[in-house]
């Protein structure tokens, strides 16, 4: 079977604590205790013991409510924050044997720019509002070489703009004049610009109108279909996750309570929290 290929990404025992930490932190928090904060030392256990693998062409959904730790997880995966414990391996870095969390800041920056693309929940986090849309999309490309060439970069961002279905005539307009859905598309174009080998989506459709949500989800699905890019989607919107992902992790109070195939977790949830989540979904 083909499924013997090595994973693109492997995360092992990722934990993120905010605070001094103490021996009781892990037992004092979690879904059984019903909170994230250790009562001995007031450390916030944002996430603990998260492990998973991601393969070529796969979309992994991470579902949870506020406080589940999914955003901290994504920030650690994007090398924006340093986790307290855990390691992450990427197939294209050190032949899958180098722990990305141990790399220097400069190495992390190089990895982030070249291999990881991210789309944030709010466009203000992922874009520079005062610059034109084209400049936002071009920024990762301009960092690729010491002496960039203008024309090829310009051609590439025009191509990316059409790939995300934005009008090329608005390429040089400041991005703050774009609507919310269009700003998300600019973020997607920017994330795809360096041809990354992993795409991270943090609540890509929250705050958008329903019709705009549908078109952004379409776009993501189409891109995944065209490029076979592995994607990690973090969302509390179950319908979006169900549409996009093949496997999901369900998180609560910083722990993964259930994982499996998307349709199986929704149709046959085992953990009490997952059952509650699925039963509460409106669609």
């Amino acid at each position, binding site marked *: 079977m083909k499924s013997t290929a090595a994973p693109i990404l492997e995360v092992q025992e990722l934990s993120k604590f905010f605070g001094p930490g103490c021996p009781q932190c892990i037992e004092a928090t979690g879904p059984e205790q019903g909170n994230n904060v250790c009562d001995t030392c007031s450390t916030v256990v944002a996430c603990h013991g998260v492990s998973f693998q991601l393969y070529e062409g796969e979309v992994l959904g991470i579902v949870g409510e506020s406080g589940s730790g999914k955003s901290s997880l994504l920030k650690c995966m994007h090398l924006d924050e340093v986790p307290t414990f855990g390691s992450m391996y990427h197939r294209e870095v050190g032949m899958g044997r180098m722990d990305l969390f141990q790399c220097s800041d400069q190495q992390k*920056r190089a990895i982030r720019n070249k291999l990881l693309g991210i789309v944030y929940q709010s466009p203000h986090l992922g874009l520079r509002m005062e*610059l034109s849309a*084209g400049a936002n999309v*071009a920024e990762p490309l301009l960092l690729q070489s010491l*002496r960039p060439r203008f024309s090829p970069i310009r051609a590439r961002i025009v191509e990316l703009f059409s790939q995300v279905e934005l009008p090329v005539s608005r390429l040089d307009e400041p991005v703050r004049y774009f609507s919310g859905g269009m700003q998300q598309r600019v973020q997607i174009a920017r994330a795809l610009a360096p041809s990354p080998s992993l795409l991270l989506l943090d609540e890509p459709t929250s705050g958008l109108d329903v019709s705009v949500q549908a078109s952004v989800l379409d776009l993501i699905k189409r891109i995944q279909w065209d490029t076979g890019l592995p994607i990690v989607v973090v969302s509390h919107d179950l319908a979006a996750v169900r549409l996009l992902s093949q496997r999901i992790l369900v998180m609560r109070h910083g722990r993964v309570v259930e994982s499996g195939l998307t349709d199986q977790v929704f149709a046959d949830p085992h953990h009490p929290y997952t059952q509650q989540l699925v039963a509460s979904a409106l669609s």
Partner: protein
Amino acid sequence: MRAIANINSIKEGGLRRYLSDKNQIGYNFAYLNESIKREIRRKILKAIAIPGHQVPYSSPEIPIARGWGTGGLQVTLAIVGPQDVLKVIDQGCDDSVNAVNLRRFISMTTGCETTTHTREATLIQTRHRVPDTPLQEGQILVFQVPIPEPLREVEPKEELTCRMHAEGDYGLMWVKLYEEIVRWGRVTVGARYPVLVNGRYIMDPSPIPRWDVPKLNQSPALLLFGAGREKRIYAIPPHTEVDPLAFEDMPFCVENQAGKACRLCGSRESFLDEIPDEDAFASRWVCSDTDYCFERRSNSSAVRSPVLVKRKELCKPD
């Protein structure tokens, strides 16, 4: 930095005049006290060791207001010796009020000789220009710098620009150049054109015109930059690669002076100032570098044409 070897070898006038006047005037050699000079020299050495890197320093009080050249003056005072021959220019001109005052102050506190001739000077302090007469090995050029941070316009926070320099993360600078080309068809930065020094740090060369930027590359002279108000010193040691930031397919170009020549000496090879002539409702062009113009006019055999720059592309006229 020349040590005082033997009081008998000092030129007539110089140090003796200073030493004889010292009791009346009552200040240290070169105004700053020795410990301050030592600190500034150490910072200068560090700056030379890391070309293009901004080194913070004490920027002590001197009798000139901030924003009027304190940085350049502090560097000059720290390194000037009694055997130095000093030249001070302000936008190429030795006769401007500020240049004259600075020159007087330095010579009064050191007794060193002064000159207006670039070729004779050992130490040149300049505001916003590099002399058109080519510099030689052994000369030191001290620049007065208003804003030392080349990234200031794209990132207002000092904490972030420090990190960008530390990590070599200059993406925002390139984005700014990209935006300029998209908006105006070319990079319109006129002065303070960012340069990459020794392949590592992006540096602000002070508000010199684009015309002067190629002169920094592989210069035989030592180039020192002092920003007094911002308290930063940086340096380019002799024969260092200094590369203006430009896209590979849109090369750096200098001001286009086609069809213009100096009214006094006829030069087309030096940077020209535009002087409005109200009677004729036209502009006259004059060499910005007064010493260069003078040399050319005196037809001295020592006049050589300016250094031919390898890549002196002219910008398309507006």
